[in-house]
């Protein structure tokens, strides 16, 4: 097992418990998706892994995060990046005033093998040909899709063993979503890398992932291989969209009351 979360609990400001006893396994080379409603604790899970909780006054209060067998909970975030866990944060935070090239190179700033970096940059361009033309452009003026590509590219330059992606398709046009998803598939196929994808767009996430967890109120309520989850009726209705499953329903026909969820393992 490359990464294992064991009974991880996360508490913000010492009072607000966000994660309760979360267990997630990421085998080497696999892509794991985390689904869940807003506020369920998906982003928190990623931040717990990459040790970014401290900025928001949070901490892993209990449990272990084992990376290659070693507990990395609450360690220095820079150290975690060095060990190969790289997160692409949600909200597309590029360094606006730097050029695309400068942004990309920042991803490799701690690497010692400078000579290989140029090669890696070239590989990033192979995945995202659009970036090559934008090399000298100021990052702040890129479109949402281009920024997302830049950020994934930047993360790749850090030579991750695990790539954590937080809502990579949020707010992107359908065509761009497709492009990003196919790039992620390609990257997974060609690089020796695991991924954890947190997504609201469950269709997109499940098309890349091979295993998924469903979080609700900070707890895992369901997990399984993607084929199994795709068959589940709750997942279909609450995540995959109304049109999937049987006869198509329209958003126009949504009732003023809710069907109860039946989370079952």
């Amino acid at each position, binding site marked *: 097992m490359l990464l294992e979360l064991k009974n991880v609990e996360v508490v913000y400001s010492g009072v607000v418990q966000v994660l309760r006893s979360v267990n997630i396994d990421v085998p080497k080379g696999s892509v794991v998706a985390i689904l869940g409603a807003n506020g369920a604790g998906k982003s928190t899970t990623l931040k717990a892994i990459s040790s970014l909780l401290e900025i928001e006054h949070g901490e892993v209060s209990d449990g272990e995060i084992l990376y290659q067998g070693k507990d990395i909970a609450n360690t220095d975030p820079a150290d975690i990046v060095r060990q190969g866990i790289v997160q692409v944060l949600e909200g597309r935070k590029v360094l606006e005033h730097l050029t695309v090239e400068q942004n990309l190179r920042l991803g490799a700033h701690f690497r010692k093998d400078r000579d290989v970096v140029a090669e890696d940059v070239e590989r990033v361009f192979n995945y995202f040909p659009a970036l090559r033309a934008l090399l000298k452009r100021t990052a702040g003026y890129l479109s949402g899709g281009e920024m997302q590509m830049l950020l994934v590219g930047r993360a790749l330059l850090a030579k991750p063993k695990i790539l954590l992606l937080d809502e990579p398709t949020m707010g992107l046009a359908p065509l761009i979503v497709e492009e990003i998803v196919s790039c992620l598939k390609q990257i997974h196929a060609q690089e020796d890398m695991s991924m954890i994808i947190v997504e609201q767009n469950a269709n997109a996430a499940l098309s890349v992932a091979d295993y998924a967890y469903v979080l609700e109120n900070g707890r895992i309520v369901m997990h399984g291989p993607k084929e199994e989850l795709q068959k589940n009726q709750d997942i279909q209705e609450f995540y995959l969209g109304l049109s999937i499953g049987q006869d198509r329903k329209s958003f126009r026909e949504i009732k*003023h009351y809710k069907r109860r969820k039946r989370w079952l393992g």
Partner: protein
Amino acid sequence: MTQITGVLGTDPRTIAGRSIPQLLLERASSFPDDTFLQKKHFGLWKPFTWSQTLNMISRYTYGLTALGVEPGDCVALISENIVEGFVAEYAILCRGALCAAMYPDMSVSEMEHILRDSAARVVFAEDQEQVDKALTLIDKVETLEWIVYFDDRGMWGYDHPQVLSVEEMERRGEGFHTKFPEQFEQVVGSVGLRDVAIISYTSGTTGLPKGARLSHEFLLDSGYRLMDAFNVKHGHEYLSYISQAWAAEQICGIALGVLAPMVVSFAEKPETVPNDLRELAPEFLLFTPRQWEMMASGLQANMFDAHPLVRRLYEWALATGKKHRDARGLSSKLRMAMADLLVLAGVRDNLGLKRANAPLSAGSGLSEEIFTYFHAIGIPLRNLYGATESGLVAAHWKGTFNARTMGQLLPVDPTIGTLLVADVSDTGELLLSGGARFSGYHNNPDASAESFNEAGQFRTGDAIRITEDGDMIFLDRVKDLRTLANGHVYPPQFLENNLRSSPFIKDAVIIGDENYDRVSVLINIDAEICGRFAERNGLGFGTFAELSQLPEVIEQIAKTIAEVNQMLDAPSRVASFCCLPKELDPDDAELTRSRKLRRNVIFDRYATAIEALYGDDDECDLEVVIKYQDGRESVVRSVVTIKRMENADD
């Protein structure tokens, strides 16, 4: 003792021959500007005075007239507890019609049975959800003519000719009002005390629900019994929370509401009830044992997260409350005062029970532990014993609180006259006479005849023991006392109740009848408490199924069972158990809507597990079909651990 006789009540607010609508009219003319109903709306508590309420009732009544409802017809109601629901029911009664109320989470098929059986001509449906359910039946149930909804949200797209808003119904009634201005009072005047007011469908644990016909007198008499026994004062607040489909709410809310009269309050939404309860701090309230249990276990779960020092203080205060609440002597009183000041007053305040002078637990089955827990924190919880057909029979009202008993026979309204008499038959069954009489089952003369013996006593079907002090102890349903293959008789209910009182256990289903020679049990764990327990102990789990099969959780359950086993003779003890990998759910018909166990269904669905309980394997593969509300199904598979108790054979 095999027979005791009750007493007459002394409260002057007697029924004196008036039916519910007549009382209503009288109260409205005596206290027109006092608050009768009250609801939380837009963040404020909005009062409805007696005159406002009566006005609303009269408009609804004329509306019903306009829809063609005649005295003696039946009108159904499916709604959460809201002002409109109460007004609608009073309007039905004022029209001289019968009301059949349903649980709001009833499925379409349950609803169909009730609408068909009661031959309801109109159904009041709270909102879009209920209208949708009723609409699927409007062509199937021939008697059903109209669906009237209260909440118009999402209804603007509906144009079914038989669906109308309550405002539209009122509008249609206006013509009748101008044409027959006296009609409302005339009909109210003609509604007799002995007339049937409601058809209360008892959530049958077997078969289809039966409709019990309850008269005005029957409801009011039971209301009077509570009022007299618990000194319910004019103007006391009552939080209407349990469904109108339950006879107890008909007695406490509808009948006692006008008899006392009380201020009947309604929460803003079902999910804000705890908060609204806290705001109101009502004097009078009635919960089911399960609701009390949930309240206690919720508090317990909260205290799990408290600072260790606070927890110790809390536990000290609880212990002090248990030990010294009624003790005399200065040091006891001082300690009690300390515990009260430091902890217990806060607990009561948080629950909104600081003013509750008659918090009642209706129905059997509240465990001794929960009962003493509430007494320890200073909440004078009382057991209340009764049934839809027998009315309210006994309660703790004479100043003694023995958690194991159901209390003493209640005082009957003096204008009804006949005293309650409780007899225990040779088979151990409680037979009742006196007070207002049950009017039989709707459309079911056989069942009606069966419910009385030759002497005219009502057969409760409960196995009851009467103590020397005149307290009644509920043993079990007579038909539920069970015999094992080896001839041993044991009380399954007793086991279940005591097991359920553990915070870790939500439901326990006892197995063991003439086919088996040992007792075993299926456990439905309490996910919240077990989850916290697992978290505290660093145990990993994802789903409910995984949690339920954690060895440590099973060990914890085994400990609880061992404790309960201690209280029984060896052959009655639980010999083996397993934890169910899914929660019991009314949607799967495993529970009734009032969360009673449906044994046949459970036995059927978990047959594999039950077989394993009496076999030799340590685990079994279980497949369960689950049903979604829209009728879809899927199959869940899991491995269930079978645990055997070591002390079972000593």
